[in-house]
């Protein structure tokens, strides 16, 4: 048994989990082509959820602040991107690839800029007065979420809002008998790029060094003379912008969004963060991929169970590792 554990650890430890799940489901599903489609869908979904969840996890790790209103950024991002895309409708349909890309960049850019601003506002106005008081933090951020959701409802109305997609992301490409939607592939690639960027910042730059040090021991970093509160605002804003980007991606993926989007995603984001372990980017990625894969596989194998699948996954993992799969060192 020890030897087996050692081998598993050498091969990547808990990071093998998604691979194992994929392998088991390959056998269960039987048909390679549907398995491949589901896997791609799961990975794409996982990457989008990762975008939404990474900021939440980092903010918690760094400052012990749990932002229940995090999903407000997701909905804001989704609605702003959708509005920008709608107003640039002419560019979306045009055959010119450049105009397509310009519209997409404008939409995502607007969502992220708004995420940055909203993040700054949230941090300074809403969360700052209640640092180190978890109870009031939870209550206040929850209240803020309600307010933001109601504002979205007031501005965009309660009817589902349809989201345009640029022409070059429509459709699917076929390899053998495997169909892969282009948008999913795009979502996966974008998520991967963001993850690589985050990884690089956190592990290869001085800024990242400070953030990691702050996660591990905030007081020590402060004592050494670094302004960790400024760092925290930066991380918070970046996390909000990522959440808004995730929301924008999700809007394009769903193509029909309602103001409840944020609240619905919040549950998934929480589950991901809990599974992954609060405060670690790698853990969040792992959790997001697991949730994405599981919900797609289970949705195919046992549609009735799909609603509870995330919950079950979380229970199993918490029983096995009460602090999540890959918690930040603390």
């Amino acid at each position, binding site marked *: 048994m020890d030897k087996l554990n050692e081998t598993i650890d050498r091969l990547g430890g808990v990071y093998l989990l998604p691979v194992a799940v994929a392998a088991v489901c390959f056998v269960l599903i039987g048909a390679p082509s549907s398995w491949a489609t589901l896997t791609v869908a799961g990975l794409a979904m996982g990457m989008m959820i990762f975008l939404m969840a990474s900021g939440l996890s980092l903010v*918690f790790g760094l400052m012990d602040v*749990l932002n*229940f209103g995090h999903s407000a950024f997701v909905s804001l991002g989704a609605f702003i991107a959708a509005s920008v895309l709608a107003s640039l409708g002419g560019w979306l349909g045009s055959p010119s690839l450049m105009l397509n890309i310009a519209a997409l960049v404008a939409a995502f850019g607007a969502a992220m800029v708004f995420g940055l601003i909203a993040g700054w506002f949230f941090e300074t106005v*809403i969360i700052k*007065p*209640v640092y180190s008081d*978890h*109870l*009031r933090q*939870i*209550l*206040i951020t*929850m*209240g*803020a979420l*309600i*307010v933001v959701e*109601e*504002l979205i*409802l*007031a501005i965009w109305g309660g009817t589902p809002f349809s989201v345009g997609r640029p022409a070059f992301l429509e459709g699917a490409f076929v390899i053998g008998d495997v169909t892969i939607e282009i948008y999913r592939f795009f979502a996966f690639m974008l998520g991967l790029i963001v993850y690589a960027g985050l990884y690089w910042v956190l592990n290869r730059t001085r800024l990242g060094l400070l953030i990691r040090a702050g996660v591990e021991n905030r007081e020590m970093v402060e004592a050494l003379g670094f302004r960790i509160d400024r760092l925290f605002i930066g991380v918070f804003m970046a996390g909000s912008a990522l959440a808004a980007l995730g929301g924008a991606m999700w809007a394009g993926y769903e193509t029909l969004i309602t103001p409840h989007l944020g*609240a619905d995603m*919040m*549950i998934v984001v*929480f*589950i991901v*963060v*809990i599974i992954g372990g*609060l405060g670690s980017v790698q853990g969040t990625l792992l959790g997001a991929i697991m949730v994405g894969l599981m919900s797609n596989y289970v949705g195919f194998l046992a549609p009735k169970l799909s*609603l*509870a699948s*995330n*919950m079950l996954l*979380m*229970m199993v993992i*918490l*029983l096995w590792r*009460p*602090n999540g799969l890959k918690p930040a060192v603390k």
Partner: protein
Amino acid sequence: MKNQTSPIVKLAVLAIAAALLFWPFLFQDVRSIQVAARICVFIVLVASYDLLIGYTGIVSFAHTMFFGFGSYGAAIALDRMGAGWTPVLLGGLAGVAVSLVVAVAVGLLSLRVKAIFFAMITLAAASVALVLASQLSGLTGGEDGITYRAPDLFKPATKLLVDEEGKVASLFGVRLNGKLAAYYFVFVSSLVLFLAMLRLVASPIGTVLKAIRENEARAEAIGYRVVAYRTFVFCIAAVIASLAGTVYAVWLKYTGPETALSFDIMIDILLMVVIGGMGTMWGAVIGATLMVLAQYYLRDLMGSASEALAGLPVLPDILSPDRWLLWLGIVFILLVYFFPKGIAGTLSARGKGA
């Protein structure tokens, strides 16, 4: 340091209790009795939530889930077995049993880790329960919910007392019919549950719970098993919420996701606890009463204000009843900032300072 409740608060609570006791004789239209019954049920619900958030310092978002278990238990039993007391009893017990099992499972799973995990896990569990209720339409009636008949005693046609002519007797102009019996059923059950909770927090257990809230490590060091106490109080709160759900289901004669499980109810409970004041049973009474009254009457006021101002630019939009939740959210944030102790706590603190 003993936290003395101010006499004003106690007087207010007594006044509310008296008003609720004589409510059917004071106001006789259907709507105001509806309001009174809702106040009774929500006082219990909010007080049981306060056991968690105010007395023990744990934040749960699954309180409506337990309320829903009780409601659906009674509703399904009444629907399947027909009107009568046996289904109410069986359904209520089933609701309590399910609540207990889920509470123990959630508690043991997550109360031992960080408190913040608990908030997230209960939120996830509550949303799963809500989705399940609307999906398992064979059992729960889905989005439409279940309509059923209450026990015969509560039918409006039932005569509690008969005068010489064989008609329903009246007392102070109020007809003693089944509706009245139903209201007093709600009132008395709520009162019993509330007094039980009052007893609980005054007992040594209540003191231990407060000790855990104030300083967990120290409570553990003195020798109290924090996890056990937390799980215990979580179960108690779940059972009481479930019973309140059963009572409300019998009163409403309808149970659906909107009345029993929706997240809006959770938000209401949170607001009531915060308005009334966390950590006092009295606060729950004040908070629940104010909120329910505001829900029923302030909202109408907003609607008519919005209509009256129809000609003006922005004002009607801001005051429209659809924006109700927006205002609640803002009020909620401001309250948590400036009056974290709520009405009861703030009044008591002022009384002490003077």
